[in-house]
Structures are given as C-alpha cells and as structure tokens.
C-alpha cells in the first residue's frame, strides 16, 4: 500500500495504517527531535507527542508532502519541549551516559570499531555545537545538513520563505564553522577543519 492510500485509510480512523506511516517516518522524526531538543528523553517525548498529535489532526491534512506536514508537527513538539525545559531546567541522564550508549547510533557493520568511536565523538561534538545555535537556525541546519532536506521541503515544513531559509542557514553554518574551528582540538584529526 502506498503512502497516499495509507494516509486515506488513516484519515478514516484506521490506526494500523497510521502506524505503518509511523514506522516509515519515526527514524527521521526522532533524529530531528534529538538534534533540536538535544537529549534522548526529550526527543522521545517530542516524537511520541508528534505522532499522537498527527493522528488526531490527520483530518486537517490537506494533501501535499506528508513528510513536511509530519516534520512540522515534530518541530512544534520540539519547541514545546524546549519551552518546558526552560521552565523546568533539568539534566537528562542520557546526556551523561551518552558516550557509553553505543546502541543509540545506527550501526554500520562495515565500520571498524575505531571508526565507530570517532563517529560517536563527532556526533557528540556536533550536537554540542548545534545546541549553541538559536532554535530557528538550529532547525534549518539540522533539516538541511543532517537530514538532507531540500530548501523547498524546509520551506514547506517550517512555513517560511526561501530567502529566510537561506539567511538562517547561512548564519547557522557560519556559527557552526566558528564553533568547530574554536574546538577543533577536541576532534579527531581527520575531522578537523582547516584554517582558523
């Protein structure tokens, strides 16, 4: 069954059809939430809330890109999480244990253990840099450079103009470059930026 048929079936209340959509998009949704929120618990909460909200609001889906519609809900749930965290600042346990949790990274069976360690360090380092960005720039950077979405998809998802996407992304990349240059000694040699 293709995506449109699943959406049509889910709009009639078929939860099984919607769960098939969930399985198709949960990886993307969770990674977006994790990069934006910055911790595993918050990302899980935001992702689950987004799918729940999406199921309840599926009758409001007017066609177009379901991925953009779903990721918009995920983004909004991430903002809700960030606002909640601002009100109740906590230190999630998974942030402390993150480096020891190997299972949280997608395993590439062709990689050597050393490569996997380096990539995990790189992931943590990038995540720390992303957390320095403002929320709007963070979302655009994650969607474009980590999720690989096009400018048009990002524009549809967060409902801002292409010009705004370009300027936000330009500023976000410049800040990330400055961050990576200023902390490049924490990276493995092959990931260090030249210059600076």
């Amino acid at each position: 069954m293709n995506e449109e048929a699943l959406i049509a079936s889910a709009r009639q209340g078929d939860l099984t059809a919607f769960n098939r959509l969930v399985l198709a998009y949960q990886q993307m949704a969770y990674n977006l939430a994790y990069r934006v929120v910055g911790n595993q618990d918050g990302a899980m909460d935001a992702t689950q809330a987004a799918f729940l909200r999406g199921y309840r609001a599926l009758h409001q889906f007017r066609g177009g890109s379901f991925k953009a519609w779903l990721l918009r809900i995920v983004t909004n749930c991430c903002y809700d999480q960030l606002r909640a965290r601002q009100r109740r600042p906590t230190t999630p346990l998974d942030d402390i244990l993150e480096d020891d949790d190997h299972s949280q990274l997608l395993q590439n069976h062709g990689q050597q253990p050393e490569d996997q360690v380096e990539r995990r360090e790189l992931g943590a380092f990038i995540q720390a840099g992303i957390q320095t960005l403002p929320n709007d720039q963070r979302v655009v950077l994650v969607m474009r450079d980590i999720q690989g979405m096009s400018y048009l998809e990002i524009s549809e998802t967060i409902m801002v103009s292409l010009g705004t996407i370009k300027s936000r992304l330009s500023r976000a990349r410049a800040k990330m470059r400055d961050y990576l240059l200023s902390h490049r000694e924490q990276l493995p040699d092959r990931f260090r930026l030249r210059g600076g």
Partner: protein
Amino acid sequence: MTSPLRIRDRLDHRLAQANLSAYLDGEVTGDQKRRLERHLAICPGCREELASLRDTVMLLQQAPLRSVPRSFALPMELQAEQARNRRWNLTYSYLRGATVVATFLLVLLVSGDALIGMGAIPIPDAAPRLPKAVAVERVPEAPPVVEAVIEREVAATAPPTKVVTEKEGAPTPAPEGPRVELVQGQPSPAALASPSPVAEADLARGGGAPPDAAAVLGASPSIPRLEDTGMAAIAPSEKALATGRGLEPTSAPSPTLVSPTAEPPTARPTPVSPALEPPTATPTQVPVTVTPEPPTATPTQVPVTVTPEPSPTPAKVAALAPRETEAKSVQPPMTQPLSPIWTVWRGLRVLWGLLAGLLLILLASTIWAGHRRRP
C-alpha cells in the same frame, strides 16, 4: 577616487558574503552564480571562507544518525478513543452552529420587537398593541352614587334627552346619531357653543371634558365592539393616545365620525353606522376599574366637540357616561379578529421567549461538549 571596477568588486564581495552558503547548495540564480564565481576568482578571503563552509557542511553530513530507542507506533486503544473524540467533535460542531443560529434569530427578534415598540416599523392596526381588551363601553353595574351623579347632571342641563344606561333598557335609536369628534388642539367653537348637556356639564365641571376623556380613554387599553356602544367617536382618539400619534386637528366641526377599532388609527374619520344600533349587554361583561377623575384638567388637552344635534342618542350618553363616572368594563378580549401582522407579532413574542430558553440550553450544552471533546 574609486573606479567603477572597484565598486563592482565591492558589490560582488557583499553578494558573496551573503550567498556563499546558498552557492554551496546550488541555490543561487544564474546571474548570482556568475558574479560569485567572478568574485571568487579574485578574492582569496572569500575562497577561504567558502572552503571552510564546505568542510563544515561535510562534517555535519557525517554526523551519525541515531537509532530509535523504541517504536513510536500508537497503541490500538487510541482508535476507539479517536472515534469517541470524533463523535464529540461532531456534536460540538453541531451545537456550536445551532447556538450561533439561535443567537442570530434571537437578536433579530429582539431588535425587531424593539423597532416595533419604538414605532420605527409602522403597524397598520395599533389597537391590539394595548395589553388588554378593555372597552369603555357601558356600565352594567355602576355604583348607585355614580348613577345618581349621571342622572343629576343630565337632568340639570339637558333638553329633553333621555339618558339611557344599560340598566334602563335599550335606548331609542336616533335617526342620526350624535356627531362627536375628537379634536386635538383648540376646542372647536361649535363645540363650545354646543347645547349638548353632557358637553356643557363636562366643561362646567372640570374646565373642559377633554382631559377627562383623554385620561379615561388613554387608560382604556382596547376598544372592541365600540360600534355597538357609541364610543366609536372616541375610539380614534383613544387609539391615537395609545399609539402616541394623536389625531390631526380638525378645523371645522365636520359631521363625520371615526370608525372603531378594526381600522388603523388614522386621523381620517369615517362614518359610523353601527353607532345607531342599540347596545346589547352581554353577560360576559366584567367591570374592572373605577378610576378617579383627575382633579386638574387643562383645556389644552384633547377636547371633545359635540356638534349641535338636537337629540343626543343613548349611544352618545352611554359613551360619555363612563368618562364621567370613570367606570370601565372589561370585554372579552379580541371580539374582533386581529390583523395578520399583529397575530404574527404576538406569535413572535412567544417565539422570542422560547428561543431565549433554547439558546440558554444550547449554550450550556455547547460549553459542556467543548469541555468533553479533545481538540
């Protein structure tokens, strides 16, 4: 002095600074791309910046994806809950729509009612607007004192006129009934010179009968069967007072009378033939009030002009007797059929109340359903 070439380079540099990120992604226009590449060829700073941005993007793209810690599939119980929520949402939508419609209708009715009450919407028949169908028709069981007053006054002043009340039996119908006319404004000279005993008595007693007539007639809310009683002449004035419009002043004692209630309260008098008929007492008459006559009456109020007819008919006397005695009788309401617009209006008043009650129920239900539903 800066050459045009330098100015162009400076503009290109500014363009490069703003668009290097988009240039990396191929999201610049053809013209921008040409200018950027021309500038990158001559600007080592921009080339270096472009390289660092490219490295940053490549590094970000190497960030590992995280596996999902668990499945985010929704539990199946949610399906039943969603169906329930859908029903509640549907109910809420219907209730909200019904509330809006009921509110609109109520506002429409209330505003229409207010407009009719203010007279902004003209109603052809004003008589049924009065709250009760009460007529100053006859005095079936007037107190003896009042009767004595009537007879004394009439006997003292009258030419050989037979004053007939209901108790005395059927009056003698006059071939031509007395021509009584209500005039707003100055009293007619003919009326002042009238030999009519009743009119003289009125004038002698209170400086003029019109205030009394106005008071009594204004207090009497409805005029059914006036043509039976001889109050036909006063009825238009009563209507006029009730509606606040009044009659147009008549300059001459026109030998015309105003027809009773079935007609709209226009100032145009019409002949009354039913006044000639003797009044018939109906057993359903109920005397209701005896209001005292106002002690001070100003002659500027509505006078009653009685044309010098030789013999006032019993109808006339019977018409004026209640005014003197301030006795009013309650008639069975609506002896004449209401005009359709008044029937509709009365129905709307009932609907008004029903709609207000319905609106309250709808509002409560909508609020309750709004709390029950899940957005």
